[in-house]
């Protein structure tokens, strides 16, 4: 109670409290420092918050859903909220500080979800881990942005999938499968993105990407076409089903080809058309819609049916345009008459002319004008052998009439036309047929028949048959007087004539083997000569034969007969020999052979086996020649007889009448010899006439 130390201790305690604080305060101070440091550090390490607006939440969860870049988490969703008008969902993503600068204005974000499609399964890992937000941005720091619009689909162009970004557009009436692969030679080289319908609703448009380095396959003239589905065709090669791959069969796909090489590289944003199939795509290269067509017209002098709208216009077989309109035109002022002409309006695609620099209608017109001045002309030609129809061909014409293309406002330039080339094959076939038709087969046969008939008539003539007898009688009559002096001159004449005949014969014989025909003719000529030389009466027969053969039946048979009769009465004795008797039989046999040959010619293959015929004719002629081989001997005998007769006649002065008769006979013989000579010459010149009968 009364202890005093107590206040003292309190005093000292209070003093020490102020002066020396407990060391234990270090702990909270330390804790605070650490806490503050950690707080500051975490604040400092914290990246910026970006705001990504999506159409829907798609499974984004607070503090769970990651933002990934190249499959590495670079941020986490801090909050998910609705936009002010409830039209979307906003994800607030806390970025990692080190990537934050790269998330710039060019960044794009989308939600990766598991997806099962015909091309395969993607985003499978998100089945277990939940969705994540994938972002893509380039490696350059650009203008910063903190508000982004999330994509509803995985973008085509993203990090690691760089390529050429192009736009695909369907052709009129075509279709396009979106989100499908673009293959080239079966390898996927790109993708078609989401397609949408153009504002006019006339075609579908889709973004597409061709990955590097395949993008170098694309040039301005590249054409895309649809490979989806399959084609089934039945043709001469059998039934055919064709599809490019199962994936494209199910989900569609595109492929492309650069039909015409072009050095022009394509830059991002280039638009291409997608065609229904390869053929259309290929055609379109030459039907390029990128250039305005050049409109021209062609006026054809004849109005020929068969040229239709859309018929091709070809230059060197290469389609460069098409016919856009066909009409008839009557313009007396321009063409000088009032005939209906065919006026064809054509569209020429400048791109197909192969112009290297400027592909425009003006350049095309300049090019064509130059070519037209050089002789380029238009003509109509058959488009198809089977289907018929016409097309317009531009062809170079040699030595064309000069023409300058008129150009100017409102003038459709005219391509001058030239002779049409229609129905080539039909015309050729028709020509062949008509040429065959024009062959004088009928005439030939008629001539042969006439000839044979005439020969038959001649040979079967009773008078002729009587001739040897008469000649024999005549010879018997004149045998006494043939040795007269007046007759001496005759053998000389005869000798010269016979010499000529013999040389001719020899020549003919020499040339016998030159050709079958010549040989045949020669043989025939030799035979004729033999006949002529042997018998005085025979030359008339030969002459008649010649006349018959020449279809100049001017010599009446009766006259010949009378002459022969008159001759035979005087030369009956001369021809009394057996050889002379046999001669007509030989000739008859030969002619029968010729007759048979010609009949065969008429009945048989006619033209086809002319060779056989000719050889037969030659044989026949040979036979004639053989039969007349012994004629020279006969002739010598005749000469002897005549000599004798001449002497006889010379001895008989009063036998003037006979002498006159004999002289006239000899004149006739002389004429006959001359005629024979001319015949021989003629045959020599034109051996075929024997066969053809003229």
């Amino acid at each position, binding site marked *: 109670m009364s202890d005093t*130390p*107590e206040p003292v201790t309190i005093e000292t305690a209070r003093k020490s409290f102020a002066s020396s604080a*407990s060391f234990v305060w270090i702990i909270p101070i330390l*804790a605070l420092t650490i*806490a503050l440091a950690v707080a500051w550090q975490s604040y400092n390490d914290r990246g910026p918050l970006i705001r990504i607006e999506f159409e829907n939440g798609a499974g984004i969860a607070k503090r769970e859903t990651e933002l990934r870049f190249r499959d590495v988490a670079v941020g986490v969703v801090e909050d998910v909220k609705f936009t002010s008008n409830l039209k979307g969902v906003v994800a607030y993503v806390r970025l990692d500080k080190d990537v934050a600068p790269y998330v710039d204005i060019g960044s794009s974000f989308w939600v990766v979800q598991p997806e099962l499609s015909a091309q395969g399964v993607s985003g499978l890992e998100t089945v277990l881990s939940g969705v994540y937000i994938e972002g893509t941005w380039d490696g350059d720091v650009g203008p910063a942005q903190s508000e982004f619009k999330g994509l509803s689909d995985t973008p085509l162009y993203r990090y690691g999938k760089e390529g050429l970004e192009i736009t695909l557009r369907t052709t009129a009436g075509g279709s396009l499968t979106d989100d499908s692969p673009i293959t080239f030679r079966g390898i996927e080289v790109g993708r078609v993105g989401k397609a949408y319908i153009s504002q006019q609703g006339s075609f579908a448009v889709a973004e597409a990407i061709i990955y590097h380095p395949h993008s170098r396959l694309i040039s301005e003239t590249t054409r895309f076409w649809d490979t989806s589905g399959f084609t089934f065709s039945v043709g001469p090669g059998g039934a055919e089903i064709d599809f490019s791959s199962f994936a494209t069969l199910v989900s569609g796909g595109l492929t492309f080809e650069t039909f015409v090489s072009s050095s022009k590289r394509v830059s991002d944003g280039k638009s291409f058309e997608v065609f229904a199939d390869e053929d259309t795509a290929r055609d379109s290269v030459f039907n390029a819609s990128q250039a305005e067509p050049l409109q021209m017209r062609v006026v054809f002098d004849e109005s020929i049916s068969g040229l239709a709208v859309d018929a091709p216009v070809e230059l060197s077989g290469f389609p460069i345009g098409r016919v856009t309109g066909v009409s008839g035109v009557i313009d007396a002022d321009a063409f000088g008459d009032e005939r209906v002409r065919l006026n064809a309006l054509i569209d020429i695609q400048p791109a197909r002319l192969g112009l290297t620099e400027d592909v425009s209608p003006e350049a095309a017109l300049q090019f064509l004008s130059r070519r037209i001045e050089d002789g380029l002309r238009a003509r109509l030609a058959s488009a198809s052998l089977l289907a018929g129809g016409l097309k317009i061909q531009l062809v170079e014409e040699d030595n064309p009439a000069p023409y300058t293309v008129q150009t100017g406002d409102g003038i459709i330039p005219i391509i001058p036309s030239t002779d049409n080339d229609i129905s080539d094959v039909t015309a050729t076939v028709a020509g062949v047929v008509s040429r065959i038709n024009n062959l004088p087969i009928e005439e030939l046969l008629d001539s042969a028949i006439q000839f044979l008939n005439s020969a038959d008539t001649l040979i079967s003539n009773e008078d002729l048959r009587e001739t040897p007898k008469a000649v024999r009688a005549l010879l018997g009559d004149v045998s006494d007087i043939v040795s007269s002096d007046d007759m001496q001159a005759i053998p000389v004449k005869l000798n010269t004539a016979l010499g000529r005949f013999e040389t001719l014969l020899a020549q003919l014989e020499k040339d016998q083997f030159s050709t079958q025909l010549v040989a045949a003719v020669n043989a025939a000529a030799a035979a004729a000569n033999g006949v002529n030389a042997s018998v005085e009466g025979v030359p008339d027969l030969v002459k008649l034969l010649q006349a018959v053969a020449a279809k100049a039946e001017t010599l009446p048979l009766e006259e010949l007969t009378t002459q022969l009769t008159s001759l035979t009465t005087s030369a009956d004795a001369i021809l009394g020999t057996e050889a002379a008797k046999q001669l007509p039989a030989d000739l008859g046999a030969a002619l029968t052979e010729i007759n048979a040959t010609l009949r065969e010619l008429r009945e048989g293959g006619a033209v086809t086996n002319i060779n056989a015929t000719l050889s037969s004719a030659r044989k026949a002629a040979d036979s004639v020649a053989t039969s007349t081989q012994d004629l020279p001997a006969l002739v010598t005998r005749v000469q002897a007889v005549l000599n004798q007769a001449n002497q006889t006649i010379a001895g008989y002065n009063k036998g003037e009448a006979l002498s006159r008769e004999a002289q006239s006979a000899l004149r006739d013989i002389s004429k006959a010899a001359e005629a024979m000579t001319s015949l021989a010459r003629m045959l020599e010149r034109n051996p075929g006439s024997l066969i053809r009968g003229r």
Partner: protein
Amino acid sequence: MVGMEVAGQYSNIISARELGVVACTRCTQVWPAGTAVCSRCGSTIVARDAKSLQRVWALWIVGLMCYVPANLYPMLRTRTLLSVQEDTIVGGAVELMHHGAIGIALIILIASVVIPLGKFMAIAFLAISVTRPSSVSNHHRQILYEVVEYIGRWSMIDIFVVAIMSSLVQLNTLAAVNPGRASLFFALSVIFTMLSAQAYDSRMIWDVQAKQEGTTTDE
């Protein structure tokens, strides 16, 4: 109840200092006032620990500081095949309550929220009541102090649960339970509040009463 009765019975308690003695806090040997070192056990003897309140407040602050992240960070990180779940203390309790396990939820709430908060408040009250007069009797405050000190160690039950769960549920890819960051802070918070409670020199409770009584007796 007993305390109340005791307090009622012994309303005028004479402190050792008033008797001019000082007791060794370690071996309870009573020495005359002014003795510096206990001759029996050799520990330092002070009648009142002058820096006790400083230590109490310092450790109390650290404990409170740790208690904040212990509640903000997840206590338990449960990873199953399909998902990873991280729960804070309160969040986990609420979830349990949603699943119908109200009992467990209450236990967790009481053990992890009510008791630690109560301890903070009790220690703060005790520390304040030393310097300022309080309507609560000295005896009650002494009992409060003893309860705080006794119950402090049970706060570690959360940490035990987390530790046991973490060591037992480790099924590789199928499922795994890992302690969250909050467990560390929670343990620190418990440790510091326990230290704070221990640093409190309960003898000061009686000094205030002595003053009050002194003044009243003086008046």
